[in-house]
C-alpha cells in the first residue's frame, strides 16, 4: 500500500539529501518511499509501519548487527550497500544459520547526492534479492555537513539455525583442520587501490559476497563436525585465528605454501608493506573442522562457486600461549600475530 498523498517525485538525477529528509516530516517519507522502498520493495515494507512482524518457527534463531563506514563508498566489486547486506548475512551464516531478514539504518550527511544514495540502495536491494533475504524495516537520519563522511549504514540480521548445530570457538579441539574458502586479501587490496593517496591500477575486485549458500553445503557435508566458522574481515585471517586460538585455549600451526593469495594481491601487499594475512576479506570464511570430516567438507566447498579455491591450510595444536605459528614457504618458522595499530582504517 502506498501513501500517495505524501509523494512528490524525488529529483534523483540532480537532487541531494538535506536536513529536511531527516526531520521526520514529509520529505523523510518521500525519501523512504521514493528511494528505499523502490529499491528494497517487499510486502513488509509496503505496509509502511515502524516495524515488521514475521512468523517464527520452532527451534533456535540467530541475530547479529554490524555497522559499515567503508571509505571510499564505491570500490571495485561493490559499494557500501552491497557490503552492508553481505557482511551481516555472513555474520548470521557463520553460525551455520540460514539468514532471513535484515533491518537497515542509514546515517546520511547533508548534501549526499540522491543519485549515489539510489545506487547504494539499489545494490542493497539486488544483493538481498540474490541472497533470498528481505530488508523488512529500517531508519534514516540526516546529519549536518561535516558530521559524517557521506554515508554510514548499520544492518541487523536474523536467521534460523538447523537443529543440532552449535558452532562456537571453544569447540575447537587439538588435531582439527583449518580450512579457508578461497584467496585472501582481495577486499582490502581493492579498497586500497581506490584510496585517494594510494590509487594504483590493479585488476583485483572486492570478494564481497553472501556466503550462506556455501555454508549450507558445508553444513550438509560436515554437520556438527564443523566446530566453528568465522569470516575473516578486519584484521584478516591472522586476527580470526588468533581470536579462535584464545577462545579455544589452543594454538594453530599453518603451512604458508597452502594459503591461497592471488599474485596481484601479494604484489600489492609487497609494495605497501602489508601482510596479506592481515588484510580484510568480505567473501571468505575460515572453518575449523574435525580431522575425519575435513576432506569431505573441503570437497563440498570446492564444488561450490564461492569455494572453488578452498584449501586446508593447517591444524589446531596444543599451545598454552595460544599462538598461531606458521612454517614459512622459505623453510623457517614464524608467528602469525594480531595486527598492531591501524594498518588501513575504515575498510568495511
Amino acid at each position: 500500500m502506498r501513501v500517495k498523498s505524501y509523494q512528490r517525485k524525488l529529483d534523483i538525477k540532480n537532487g541531494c539529501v538535506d536536513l529536511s529528509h531527516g526531520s521526520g516530516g514529509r520529505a523523510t517519507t518521500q525519501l523512504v518511499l521514493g528511494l528505499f522502498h523502490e529499491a528494497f520493495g517487499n510486502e513488509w515494507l509496503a505496509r509502511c509501519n515502524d516495524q515488521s512482524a514475521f512468523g517464527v518457527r520452532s527451534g533456535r534463531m540467530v541475530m547479529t548487527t554490524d555497522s559499515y563506514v567503508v571509505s571510499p563508498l564505491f570500490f571495485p566489486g561493490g559499494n557500501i550497500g552491497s557490503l552492508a547486506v553481505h557482511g551481516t548475512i555472513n555474520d548470521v551464516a557463520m553460525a551455520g544459520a540460514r539468514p532471513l531478514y535484515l533491518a537497515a539504518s542509514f546515517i546520511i550527511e547533508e548534501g549526499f547526492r540522491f543519485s549515489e544514495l539510489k545506487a547504494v540502495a539499489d545494490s542493497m536491494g539486488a544483493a538481498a534479492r540474490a541472497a533470498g533475504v528481505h530488508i523488512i524495516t529500517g531508519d534514516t537520519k540526516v546529519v549536518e555537513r561535516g558530521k559524517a563522511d557521506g554515508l554510514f549504514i548499520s544492518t541487523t540480521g536474523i536467521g534460523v539455525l538447523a537443529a543440532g548445530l552449535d558452532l562456537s570457538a571453544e569447540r575447537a579441539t587439538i588435531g582439527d583442520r583449518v580450512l579457508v574458502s578461497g584467496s585472501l586479501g582481495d577486499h582490502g587490496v581493492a579498497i586500497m587501490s581506490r584510496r585517494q593517496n594510494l590509487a594504483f591500477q590493479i585488476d583485483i575486485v572486492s570478494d564481497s559476497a553472501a556466503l550462506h549458500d556455501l555454508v549450507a553445503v558445508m553444513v550438509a557435508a560436515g554437520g556438527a563436525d564443523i566446530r566453528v566458522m568465522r569470516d575473516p574481515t578486519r584484521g584478516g585471517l591472522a586476527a580470526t585465528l588468533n581470536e579462535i586460538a584464545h577462545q579455544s585455549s589452543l594454538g594453530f600451526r599453518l603451512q604458508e605454501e597452502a594459503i591461497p593469495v592471488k599474485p596481484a594481491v601479494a604484489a600489492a601487499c609487497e609494495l605497501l608493506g602489508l601482510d596479506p594475512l592481515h588484510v580484510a576479506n568480505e567473501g571468505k570464511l575460515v572453518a575449523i573442522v574435525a580431522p575425519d570430516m575435513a576432506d569431505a567438507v573441503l570437497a563440498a566447498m570446492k564444488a561450490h562457486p564461492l569455494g572453488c579455491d578452498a584449501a586446508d591450510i593447517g591444524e589446531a595444536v596444543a599451545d598454552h600461549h595460544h599462538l598461531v605459528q606458521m612454517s614459512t614457504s622459505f623453510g623457517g618458522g614464524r608467528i602469525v600475530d594480531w595486527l598492531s595499530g591501524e594498518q588501513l582504517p575504515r575498510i568495511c
Partner: protein
Amino acid sequence: MKYADEFRDKTIAQGLAQAIGTEADPQRAYRFMEFCGGHTHVISRYGLDDLLPANVRMIHGPGCPVCVLPTSRIDMAIRLAARPQVTLCVYGDLMRVPGSQGQSLLRARALGADIRMVYSTLDAIRIAEQALDQEVVFFAIGFETTTPPTAVMIRLAKKKRLKNLSVFCNHVLTPPAMQSILESPDIRTVGRAEIDGFIGPAHVSAIIGTEPYGRLAEQFGEPIVIAGFEPLDVMQAILMLVRQVNDGRFEVENQYSRAVRREGNHRAMEEVSNVFGLRDQFEWRGLGLIPDSGLKLKRAYAKFDAEMRFVMHELPAADNPACECGAILRGVKRPVDCKLFGTVCTPETPTGSCMVSSEGACAAHWTYGRGRDYQVRRASCE
C-alpha cells in the same frame, strides 16, 4: 610474484643453509650484525634463524629510522603539530612512537592536531597545494634511501613557489652510525669487536654505493657484505661473511649487485647535496651524539626549514630507565634481555621505539619470533 619468488626459493635456501652449516667452524662463534631494519624484518618474517647453525648468530643493528629517532625529536613534532595553523605530514610508522609522558603523534591527532599519514613526499606537496592557508610541515626521517625524495620535494616546492610547505628534517647517515657502533666501548673488548661482520644496507647502498664502507672494513678489520632485502639475499650474504671470517679477510663485498653499483646513484646523491648539508652532530637513540651523522637544509633553502621557520627548540627528554632500546640498537642486548619486553612493552603499548616499527628489533621479534623463546624456556624446564 615475479622478481620476488625467485629470491624466496625454499630449495636454494636449504642449499645455502647446508653450505653455511658445512663451512662454519664448529669451534667458533659467528656474530653478524645486520645493520638495516629491513634485514631484521626479513630474518624474522621468514624465520631465517631456524635455518642457521647454533654458532651463527644474527645481531640486530640500529638501521631502523623510527627506532633511532630520540624522544626529544618526537616531542618537538608533537609540540609543532599542536599549533593550530600547522598540518603535519608523517610516514605511518611515526604515529605510534612514544614521546615523553605517554604522548605520541597518534594521541595528539586524537586530541585534535592535524596530522596526516602520507606514503610519499609528493602527498605533502598535494596537501600543501590544497590548503594554502595552512602551514604544511613534512616530518622527514630516514637514512640515505628516504633523503632523495625529501630533496626532490623541496626542489619542487621551490619551483612551484609553495610558501606554506616546510620540512622538519631528521635525516641521518649510515656510515657514521656504523663507525659509532664499532667504536662503542661496550661493543669493543680488548683489541677486537664482538661483531664478526656486518650485513651492509641494501637500499642505502643503492644510493651511496659500496665505497663509503671500505674505510670501515679496513680500519676495524670487519668484513662487510652488502645484501638485498630478500631472504635468499640474506642467506647468501651470511655464507659470504662466514667465508670472509674463515679466510681472515675483511673486505666490502656486494651480494646485491642487481641494484647496488660501486659508485652509487649519482643523480640521487646530487639531489641530496644540492639541498642538504651536514649538521655538526645529531642525537641517535641508543648511540648518543654522533658527529657529522645528521643532515640539515642548506642556507639557500632555509625558508623550507621548519626548525627555523617555527623557531623549534629541542628540550631534553628522559626515556623510561628500564627500556633497553639503546643497548638493543647497539647490538649489546637482545629484545628478550629487556624486562619490559612482552610485559608492559608490546606493539599495542610500546614503551620504546624498537617495539613500534616492523623493522624494529623488538617488534620483529615479538611479532614473528617470540614462539622460539617459549620453546627455549620449555626445553630448559624439561
